[in-house]
């Protein structure tokens, strides 16, 4: 029981990191119909910037600056590289973002170097006792992840629901041309959605690196958001959150129990388990759990 609960908490903790990245994917997808494959690089950029700034500035200030920096970076990438491609097939734009990802990640790996860099988070790997009578102990950083993600999601959803810009973004996602005729700056919405996604990726990167630190393989964490967005449905914000948490929980549970109950699946099956879940979900619902079925007109 304790094992189950603590692996659940760990799953929800990691899941909320995936949810942040997944939200970035979905926000960009909703406004531009493009999957931004450069999210992994943006995520790493956030973590790397924090690791350089944490010394002189302290953790929290470093995180705020990193979020701003990565948001600016994402915004300028959109303006310079993605904007000229509007109107071209989405597949081509998606591949461009893969190109951005490769280039950016290689630049970053130069800054990471051969050693593991630390983001110097206040939590580290310290544990906190939960419900002392049950004796569950979880890492503090997992709790911090869940709390931060909850705050970020609340702010984000309130932004979409109540602010003018949020309304503009929803309008653009619904119908670009109509939004344009109502005076919405669609280009501005594209840029803003990239900036938001970049900021979310930076936060996710800091959390992903808060445990073991930043190494060359950190970006793999962001790829876990891909099954998450497919499970949730590509154009659903709620789906991204639920998908992200699902991926985290599945991963944690599989890594806890699979070795005992299904050893024939091999070591490290937990890494690919989310993809299996994704395939199963797609077999039943080709547009994910919360995705809208595409209506086609000839």
């Amino acid at each position, binding site marked *: 029981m304790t094992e189950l609960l603590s692996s659940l908490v760990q799953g929800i903790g990691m899941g909320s990191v995936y949810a942040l990245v997944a939200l970035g994917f979905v926000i960009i997808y909703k406004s531009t119909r493009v*999957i931004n494959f450069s999210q992994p690089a943006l995520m790493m950029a956030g973590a790397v910037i924090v690791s350089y700034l944490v010394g002189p500035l302290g953790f929290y200030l470093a995180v705020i600056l990193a979020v701003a920096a990565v948001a600016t970076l994402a915004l300028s990438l959109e303006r310079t*590289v993605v904007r*000229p*491609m509007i109107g*071209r097939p*989405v*597949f*081509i734009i*998606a*591949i*461009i973002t*893969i*190109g*951005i*990802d*490769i*280039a*950016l*990640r*290689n*630049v970053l*790996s*130069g*800054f990471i*170097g*051969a050693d593991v860099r630390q983001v110097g988070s206040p939590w580290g790997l310290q544990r906190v006792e939960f419900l002392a009578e049950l004796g569950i102990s979880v890492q503090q950083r997992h709790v911090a992840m869940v709390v931060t993600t909850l705050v970020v999601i609340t702010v984000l959803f309130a932004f979409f629901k109540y602010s003018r810009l949020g309304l503009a973004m929803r309008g653009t996602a619904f119908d670009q041309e109509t939004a344009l005729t109502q005076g919405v700056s669609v280009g501005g919405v594209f840029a803003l959605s990239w900036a938001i996604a970049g900021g979310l990726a930076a936060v996710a990167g800091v959390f992903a690196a808060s445990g073991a630190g930043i190494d060359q393989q950190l970006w793999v964490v962001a*790829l876990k958001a*891909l*099954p998450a*967005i*497919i499970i949730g449905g*590509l154009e659903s914000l709620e789906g991204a959150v639920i998908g992200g948490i699902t991926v985290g929980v599945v991963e944690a549970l599989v890594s806890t129990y699979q070795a005992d109950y299904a050893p024939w*699946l*091999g*070591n*490290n*099956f937990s*890494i*690919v388990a989310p*993809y*299996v879940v*994704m*395939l199963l979900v*797609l*077999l039943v619902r*080709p*547009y994910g759990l919360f995705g809208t079925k*595409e209506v*086609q007109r*000839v």
Partner: protein
Amino acid sequence: MTTPEATPRRRSARLSGRPEMFTSYAEHMRMLNTAPKRRAVVALVVVALLVPFVFDDNTLHILALGFAAAIGAIGLNLVTGYCGQVSLGHAFFLALGAYTAAAISGDPEGRTIGFGVTNILIWLPAAGIVAGLAGVLISPLATRLRGLYLAIVTLGLVFLGEHIFSEWRSLTGGEQVGREAAVPELFGFSFDSDGEILTGDQKLYLLILVVLIILAVLARNLTRSRVGRAFTAIRDRDMAASAMGINLTKYKTIAFAVSSFYAGCAGALLFTVIGFFDPSSFNLLLSVQYIAMILIGGIGTISGSIMGALFITMLNPVTRELADYIPFLTTDPTAVLNHFILEGVLYGALIIGFLLFEPRGLFGIWLRIRNYWKAWPFTY
């Protein structure tokens, strides 16, 4: 619906003095429909056959890798460039081909599974067929999904494949151990060891060149056929295609099967040239490399696939050579700016640059050069 006065089906004769004028559809659709194309292709093939006697073995090794990759790139171009189904799962099919070939020709007494059949006429088609069957198995999922959903699902395939292959140690040797690749032999004639006349690299180069030419001609023929026209119709507008009576499921399945067949053959040959491989070779980066090949070479062209594959394969050795000439670039892997990083950045920048400035890739550049000289000295 043939009417008596329909045009006769014989190939009409060329009009004298008007070499560029086609008088029948069949003539227009011929594989090499103009005289300069015929001459250029013959010249290219002759040059390619003479290359092994001019260049050293290292260059031949890289070129052989490039030709093997070209086979895989042609396969990916059939499914992605012609049929419009974005596949990021090419690495998985390459892996299937490589392991099938390696298992069939492997040493029966060895550490990993092997059946000791080293005849290339057996393991090469088998590698293609196993991968092709896997493509057919995947296609029910693929035909239900569209666009970027499909891209992510095929990407999932790569991760699943990587897991399966790294766990199946009796076949693959396991991670960081690996196994030896397929042995290229034809009725006792070995392609990979130095002979009396030709070195191993020369023989492998020629072998893969011949396989590439055969498979490229087959692919080109496929694209000119009814099936190829169905592919392009599906790519351009799948709804319209199905309204015209094209069976989407059938043709998407064919596209995946043929593409995976090519990938299987490519995987088998690629690692025959390298000689040794482990499961970590078949990662997402490999898939992205093949996407880069067809994008840089030219989407929806066979010759573009070959150009792109050679380009991407040469990128690595060329940047390594460059490192010797650029003072601040080192081959020291711990430095901030080493050639690995430069290669990666170049890679990404090339993909972005080509898509932004030359969407039709190397093939498009060639078209522009050709059209310029065709009209020279006039501007149009």
